């Protein structure tokens, strides 16, 4: 089971500090909800898609769009219902019509959703999980919080493996498993068995944590820290200036 979306490459975004990336992601997401002009919103869509194209190549760059395609289709279907008042843009059938205001609202929502989806995906593509964890720690996530996060990542593949093994063992006992439709009651024994296996491992994990010094004054293990260089300040300033420029241009345009 793959637990990472990171694409191993080099470039400006990879050199950009993960703390600044997180800050920029949050601030940009907030800025996109300001009353920006539609031109600026669609410009953000184009820029984010081009960035994804550079980082993830053509095939990967379309993947985020695929994950929201159904939502975009639903948004188009529900467009006639969203804004009933205003100037009629075109009539679909008798009383079913789409107004200019509905089209504008649809355009605004779609551009915002696409940009946010791409921004989050680009950050995941260019930042490793450990960098992300350390950045969260820098922003105030506790040592124990980070430990839970990294331990969870460590256990995901092994729990997924044991679940698959248990599932296969149960399927071997079933009569013609390929013909039967999987139902909830068939999943339940597998779920309980997988849970027992996972829960049985807890005392051993706790024991290992204590061996590594958790609960002692002098810890035998500690997290490395992200370096605080002068470039961090520059990166943080850039992370604030770009969204501020987008907000300024978007509101004034």
């Amino acid at each position, binding site marked *: *089971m*793959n637990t*990472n*979306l990171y694409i191993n490459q080099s470039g400006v975004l990879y050199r950009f500090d993960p703390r600044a990336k997180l800050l920029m992601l949050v601030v940009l997401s907030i800025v996109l909800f300001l009353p920006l002009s539609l031109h600026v919103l669609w410009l953000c869509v184009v820029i984010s898609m081009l960035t994804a194209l550079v980082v993830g190549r053509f095939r990967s760059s379309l*993947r*985020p769009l695929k*994950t929201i395609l159904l*939502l975009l289709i*639903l*948004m188009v279907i*529900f467009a006639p*219902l*969203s804004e009933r008042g205003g100037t009629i843009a075109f009539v679909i059938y008798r009383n079913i019509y789409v107004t200019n205001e509905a089209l504008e*609202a649809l355009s605004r*929502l*779609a551009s*915002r*959703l696409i940009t*946010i*989806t791409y921004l*989050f*995906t680009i*950050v*995941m593509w260019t930042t490793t999980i450990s960098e992300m964890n350390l950045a969260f720690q820098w922003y105030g996530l506790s040592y*124990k919080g980070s*430990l*839970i*996060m990294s*331990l*969870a*990542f460590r*256990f*995901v593949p092994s*729990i*997924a493996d044991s*679940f698959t093994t248990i599932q296969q063992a149960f399927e071997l006992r079933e009569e013609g498993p390929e013909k039967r*439709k999987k139902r*909830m009651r068939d*999943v*339940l024994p*597998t*779920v*309980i068995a*997988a*849970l*027992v296996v*996972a*829960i*049985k*491992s*807890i*005392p051993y*994990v*706790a024991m290992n*944590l*204590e061996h590594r010094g*958790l*609960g*002692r*004054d002098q810890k035998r293990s500690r997290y490395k820290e992200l370096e605080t260089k002068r470039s961090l300040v520059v990166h943080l300033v850039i992370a604030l200036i770009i969204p501020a420029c987008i907000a300024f241009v978007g509101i004034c345009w």
Partner: protein
Amino acid sequence: MRVSTSKSLSATHIALTAVLTAVVVVFTLIVRVPTPIKGYISLCDVIIAFSAYLFGPWVAFVAGGLGTGLADFIGGYPQWAPLSFVIHGVQGLLIGLIARKKDNVGMFIDAKLIRLVFAGVVGVVVMSGGYYLAGGVLYGFKTALVEIPLNVLQSTVGFIFGIIVMKALLKAYPAVRLLRR
């Protein structure tokens, strides 16, 4: 070197929360049950409800919130991760706060079925209401209405099977009671 008992207890607590978080990730991404309308429901709510009933609100908050958030990251839906963290975290927290009952000495005892069901219903409201609000802000409130039935179905199945899984697990592995705090 001094070893404090309260902190050595928290090692178990950290291990419990981390393992349950990983279980939530696995059950969100791998374990999916087909629905009659050709869709899928994930079983993350089963584990969130189960964690809340058995291990309390804070374990359910972290395991539910972090687990679904990480699953969104890994599964290719990172834009949903912060929202899932808040919605499923609060869902687990409220289920745990309502369902958990202490006796006179302060030890946790098994709550009555009606209490578990009420807590589960609150979880259903929080989960479907939370996703409706978040979806409404992101892609419009009319479009977000479409998701409500599936979310209600998923969280209802989640808390019902959460109760069943909890009862079955207590029978299959009674030592799990030792991990309750």
